[in-house]
Each structure stands twice: as structure tokens, then as C-alpha cells.
């Protein structure tokens, strides 16, 4: 099955939402000169096709300004998937990406203390069957980050819209 590809109109909607993600369907419809139902339908499809999610992003202070930690994991090639899934369940883990290159899995975590980094990287991950090596590096300064671009991995949960 081929995945739905966004058209120009979808991109126009995304552009409007980029300035205000909470704009009502009615206002988006007015801005683009279409009916409210058209907007509702497009937003539903974009979410169902995992192209779009609406969420509140909270500042790092929400977690008490944690350390941002990158953990490169080298694992036996045949066990990479199971190792990645086990890591994804651990506390503080934000992202788990299976890669081809300098390590097998890139893990991103947020932790309040170095002790928590030690517990996850050096104790929990390293102890998993199939893991050969972990390389931890801590972000000392973030220069660039785009909150609106992401990899959507969680299933879409429809909510009743009472707008």
C-alpha cells in the first residue's frame, strides 16, 4: 500500500498551523477560503497517516533542566532490535534510533543527575545481553533544535472534537 503523499493544500494548512497550532478549524478554513469540514478532513488524514501530531511541548524546566545525554550503543548485529526495544522502556529515555555506522543504536536521554546517567548507560544498558559497548556524551550547549520537526512513532489516538 502506498502511503498518502501531502499535496500543496496540506502544506498550506501546515503553514497556518506553524504560527498557531491551536487555531480553530473555522479560522483555518476562513484563512484558506474553504469549508470547516475540509479542514477537519485534512487534519484527520494527516494525523491518521502519522504526518502530524498536536502536542504541548514543555520547556526543559518541566523536568528540572535535565542533562541531555547521547548514548551510542554497539550491540551484536542479530540482537539490535531487542536491545533497542529494551532500552526504549528504561527511565528518562527520549529517543532510540537504530543506525548503520559508528554504532548500532543512538539513544537520547534526559537525566537530572550524573548518577542517573551512570545507572542507565553504564549499568542498565551495558548489562543487556548482546550489548558490547556504550559511549556516553553529554550536551554542554545546544545551538540548534527544531521543535516542529520530529519522527512520529506513537500511534494516533483519535479524540472527540467538540469544537
Amino acid at each position, binding site marked *: 500500500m502506498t502511503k498518502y503523499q501531502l499535496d500543496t493544500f496540506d502544506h498550506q494548512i501546515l503553514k497556518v498551523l*506553524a504560527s498557531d497550532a491551536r487555531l480553530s478549524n473555522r479560522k483555518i478554513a476562513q484563512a484558506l477560503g474553504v469549508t470547516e469540514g475540509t479542514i477537519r478532513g485534512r487534519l484527520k488524514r494527516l494525523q491518521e497517516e502519522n504526518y502530524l501530531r*498536536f*502536542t504541548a*511541548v514543555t*520547556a526543559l524546566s518541566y523536568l528540572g533542566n535535565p542533562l541531555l545525554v547521547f548514548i551510542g550503543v554497539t550491540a551484536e548485529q542479530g540482537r539490535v532490535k531487542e536491545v533497542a526495544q529494551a532500552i526504549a522502556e528504561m527511565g528518562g529515555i527520549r529517543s532510540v534510533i537504530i543506525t548503520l*555506522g559508528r554504532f548500532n543504536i543512538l539513544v537520547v536521554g534526559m537525566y537530572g543527575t550524573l548518577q542517573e546517567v551512570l545507572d542507565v548507560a553504564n549499568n542498565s544498558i551495558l548489562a543487556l545481553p548482546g550489548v558490547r559497548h556504550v559511549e556516553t556524551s553529554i550536551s554542554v550547549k545546544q545551538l540548534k533544535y527544531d521543535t516542529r520537526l520530529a519522527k512520529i512513532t506513537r500511534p494516533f*489516538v483519535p*479524540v472527540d472534537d467538540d469544537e
Partner: protein
Amino acid sequence: MVGNGGKAGRYEFDETDRRILELLKVNGRATNQKIARLLKISAATVSARIRQMEDAKAMKVIAATDFSAFGYNILIAIGVEVQGRPAEDVAQELAKLSQILSINLVTGAKDIEILLAVHEFSELSDFLLNDIAAIRGIRSLSPAIAVDTVKFDFDIAPLS
């Protein structure tokens, strides 16, 4: 800014803020009226709290789009080694490149971690031979090409 927070680092989320946020993280487009009804508070309170958190840059409701919505089919996490130049200067120059989505100065074997997004592999030649080649002080690049994303949570991030 990671670690030291800045202005947003000082915002204290109270119980009401956190309950509103729990709902907005599930559905960023839930109306003030709906949130008010679920939490048994007034819609005016919901509206005021949301504005207060947004003004303090403590929270922002976003329409997050998948990389693929813009045709970014290839993501590469690259560790950059710097030589003979302050790593921060190199990072500042890298930040100007639109294909680079995130940049962190890090401790460890590498000096800078970047996330690069391209539509197709052919774009890498321009990136390497023109963009990167023009930046002084880059000693080496070590790539890891994303092949499967098991988890990617994006609801906590630096807001500036």
C-alpha cells in the same frame, strides 16, 4: 539552552499547570472549554494559564510534522571532531546550514553532535563537498544512518 534553562528555567509549574499540560500533551487542540470541563475549573482559568505558560516560554502547543512530510527520507547522526579552532565557532557555522536540524556541543570523543536530514543520498555530495568543505576546523565526520526509529519523544524541548 540545555542545563541552565535561562528565563524558561525559572518558571515553576504548579499542579493546575501540570494537569492542563497532561491534557494538552495528548491533544494539543483540546478547547479551553473542554479542558475546563475535564478539570472542573473555569475556561477563563485555562485560558489564563495557557497564556501565562506561553508568555514565560515554558510551554508551546505545536503542530509537529514528521520528517517525511517534507520529504526528508534520510536522517544521519554525525559526530564531528574539531581541530585547531574553538568547537563553538565551528558549531555556529554548522548552525547556518538548513539541512542540519540539531546541533549540540558535547563531551566525549566527538566535539559536536549534529542531526542531518536530506531528501536523497545525492544531496550528500553538495553537503560534503561544498557546505562542510567551506567550514574551517572540521577534522572528521563519523556518521550513523538512521534505519529504524523505535522511539522519538519530542514533547520536552528547549523553548526560546
